[in-house]
């Protein structure tokens, strides 16, 4: 363990992290899982919309956009 887990939303541009735990509930949880965001998955923050939100992440060779409130509910640790 060792490393501290942080919310995905705090990831800076270009930073890469690995999913530790999902706190998301309901349909969004299913959606996120089905996109392949499961514990251990590597995510890279690749951009933010001009207004700062939503945020785009590179996951398993695809780009997925999440709103920051939702990204806050995904705990990651930096790799």
């Amino acid at each position, binding site marked *: 363990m060792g490393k501290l887990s942080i919310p995905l939303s705090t990831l800076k541009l270009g930073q890469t992290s690995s999913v530790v735990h999902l706190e998301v509930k309901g349909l969004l949880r299913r959606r996120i899982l089905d996109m392949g965001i499961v514990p251990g998955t590597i995510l890279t923050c690749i951009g933010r*919309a001009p207004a700062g939100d939503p945020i*785009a992440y590179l996951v398993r060779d695809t780009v*997925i*956009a999440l*709103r920051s409130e939702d990204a806050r509910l995904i705990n990651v640790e930096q790799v």
Partner: protein
Amino acid sequence: MTTLNNKMDPLMKIHSETEHIRLASGTPIADRVVSDIFSYTEKIVQKVVIREVSGQKSWKDKIDQIVISRVFGYPLMLLLLGAVFWITIAGANIPSQMIAAVLFAFQDILTHWFEVVQAPAWLHGVLVLGMYRTLAWVIAVMLPPMAIFFPLFTILEDLGYLPRVAFNLDNMFKKAKACGKQCLTMCMGFGCNAAGVVSTRIIDSPRERLIAILTNNFVPCNGRFPTLIAIASIFMASSLVFSQSLQAAGIITLIVLLGVAVTFVVSWILSSTILKGEPSSFVLELPPYRKPKFGAVLYRSIIDRTLFVLRRAIVIAAPAGAITWIMANVYIGDLSVIAYIAGALNPLAKAIGLDGFILMAFILGLPANEIVVPILLMSYLATGQLTEFGSLLELKEILIANGWTWLTAFNTMLFALLHWPCATTLLSMYKETGSKKWTFVGFIIPTVIAFAVCFIVAQTVYFFGLA
């Protein structure tokens, strides 16, 4: 939540027996199942895919840095929107005139045939002066812009730009407590609002989907563009050919932005009143940019969209042209039916900066917005027949002769942007919501807004004596 019936069901029985397994497990079984599938596929991919990692960023990544960037993101969207309109307006001008010349020349031949067989004047009136002329106008005015606009739009779609627009604008939709994907349904609305309403299926939350359905009409569809373009070109822009199309494009862009602003405001009001709720989550895939296949783009946009919309317009324009001609030529006392109705509507219409004929044309245009201008022209001309639409200049003369000022032009554009949805769109709303109540809401919101906005503008202008 097992009902008596479910208890009898052997499957449900086993299901309740599995409860202890679910409880014993630390993580939800459903999560485990998905995680396990992914760790399984990860292993397969490791075996079968070899990637030559190149440190260089591809041009696609570089493009995204501009498209979604803080500095260029919004200006680029505006620029592209304006460019699409400008290419459409500038490019459609000459083909429109050519098609009009051919179709109206054929009208003379038709008239000649009617004379040869000594057909009664009313038959010639209904079929040629009413039906054929309206058709000719609709085709000449609609076909070229559509044949340019739809392929341009399909290219943006195929490139993968539209999801980026949704990504860039999501924050505003979130503030209006709506879904970022609503933006994609609005893009569809540019082509046809009925199609836009159907495309709201991509929105998961029923509440946000309903908002998207009710507000789609504030994006001007292809049936309304010719009206907006014609009026913008002749009233708002200077007479220089090049800068005219550029200015017209600028005005159309502003009108569209106004429609977008109204969409945000109405979405927000709906979310705070009858469709209360918090914005739900939003997961959007941004697919990689792909080079569009131009053959496929042309095929799809011409066959699927242009011809589809044109066919619909023609089916409606033909009978509408005939009916309008009859109404303009049947007299009650001294006044034709049309003049009679327009006279009755006039006080209301004047209050909102229009005149009775314009308001009547919008009402008669309920089946399809394309026929609003043809109906208007036909009813303006004393004989009740559509003018030979040779050039926009003639159109301007007719309108000015009928008392149009810049306010009339401006408010006609506003009314065209904001007024009730066409019958096809209303039907789509009914099919998608399955509710007469929501269809009515979809009708009444734009109607009230159109009257209110035009009233305020007109009264302000009257008050200051500006027009």
